[in-house]
């Protein structure tokens, strides 16, 4: 049974089963909102804060998720699998850049 995921920043909603990560389901449906990177918990760009809902997680890099993050539901969307309807806000971004900030402008 798919759950409904709401991205509070953009009002975007999409369906995600408990077998699929929040990030893959979003990308597969052609939705936007959470930055998509490695999809393996290694790069950190897809960081979100879960505001409400139940979920399971798979292993993710400690470079991007501290114990404090984990305690507050600040997690990598590519490693979070919903167990209920869920709402989140986006806190990661594609911010670092080749040649510092200059290249990104």
């Amino acid at each position, binding site marked *: 049974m798919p759950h409904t995921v709401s991205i509070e920043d953009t009002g975007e909603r999409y369906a995600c089963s408990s077998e699929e990560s929040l990030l893959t389901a979003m990308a597969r449906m052609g939705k936007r909102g959470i930055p998509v*990177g*490695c999809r*393996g918990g290694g*790069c950190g760009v897809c960081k979100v804060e879960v505001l409400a809902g139940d979920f399971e997680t798979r292993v*993710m890099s400690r470079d991007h998720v501290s114990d404090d993050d984990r305690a507050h539901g600040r997690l990598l969307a590519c490693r979070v699998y919903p167990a209920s309807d869920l709402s989140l806000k986006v806190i990661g971004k*594609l911010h670092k*850049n*080749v*040649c510092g900030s200059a290249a990104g402008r």
Partner: protein
Amino acid sequence: MALTGVLRPGHAQVRVLDLNEAVRFYRDVLGLVETGRDAQGRVYFKCWDERDHNSYVIRESDRAGLDFFGFRVLDTATLDKLESDLQAYGLATERIPAGEMLATGERVRFTLPSGHVMELYAEKDKVGNGIPLVNPAPWSKARDNGIAPIRLDHALLYGPNVAQVHKIFTEVLGFYLVERVLTPDGNANAAIWLSCGQKVHDIAFAEYPEPGKLHHCSFLMESWDQVLRAGDIMSMNQVAVDIGPTRHGVTRGCTIYAWDPSGNRFETFFGGHLPYPDYETMTWTFDNFGQGLDYPQRKLHETFLTVVS
């Protein structure tokens, strides 16, 4: 002999978040040959056509990324010479004893101003590619297992101080600059592609604020057709693909970028032009970086600039 000094990329050690999942990926999907496991729990792989015992080593960790990247040098006299040259240049070096990595001799380790740990070594056991040295067949069954690249080709690393790294590779280690991308103001290099032989690159660096980052390790394919086949196998196995199949403007290589299950990017690469050390460097302006990255699409994919492990 024309090729002396540093011969080639020899090994990469990469951190993975789940060892068993990573072993299944590298062995069954990428199609590397597992050649050993050590007491630290590291798993050793080689590409099927490589003759040395290992070229790609994975270690379970709570974060992804690159531990170190190593180059094979001609012999132990060369190793000693390069070590003293690095020290004379002002870099601290460390000797890692023979056997610390399986089937591998003493290594000279140093850290670049970009934060990456580099190694040089002269000895790694030759285990062969499964094909006899007398009257060899062109390939063996191992070529058909998974994506099955033929060798670890190069790495692209992201970190600060690329200008200093450039000097170390060209002034101490005998590399030459094949191609570069300028910074937006045109006054420095945003990215550099360096060769120690006649390959289009053996290592590349891009300027990035965070030190020690891995952009990708690259594996060599035998043909464009094999790159397309790699793309099919990635999709069959739901591998996260970043860019491609396409062709780079820089190097002219054909490519797919994708990620391992821990978010370490890798590349399946074919082709590229053949430079010589006397050739002039080719330069890309920053506004043409899109073509440099993806020649048909002329697009500077944002993930290329921002997603690293």
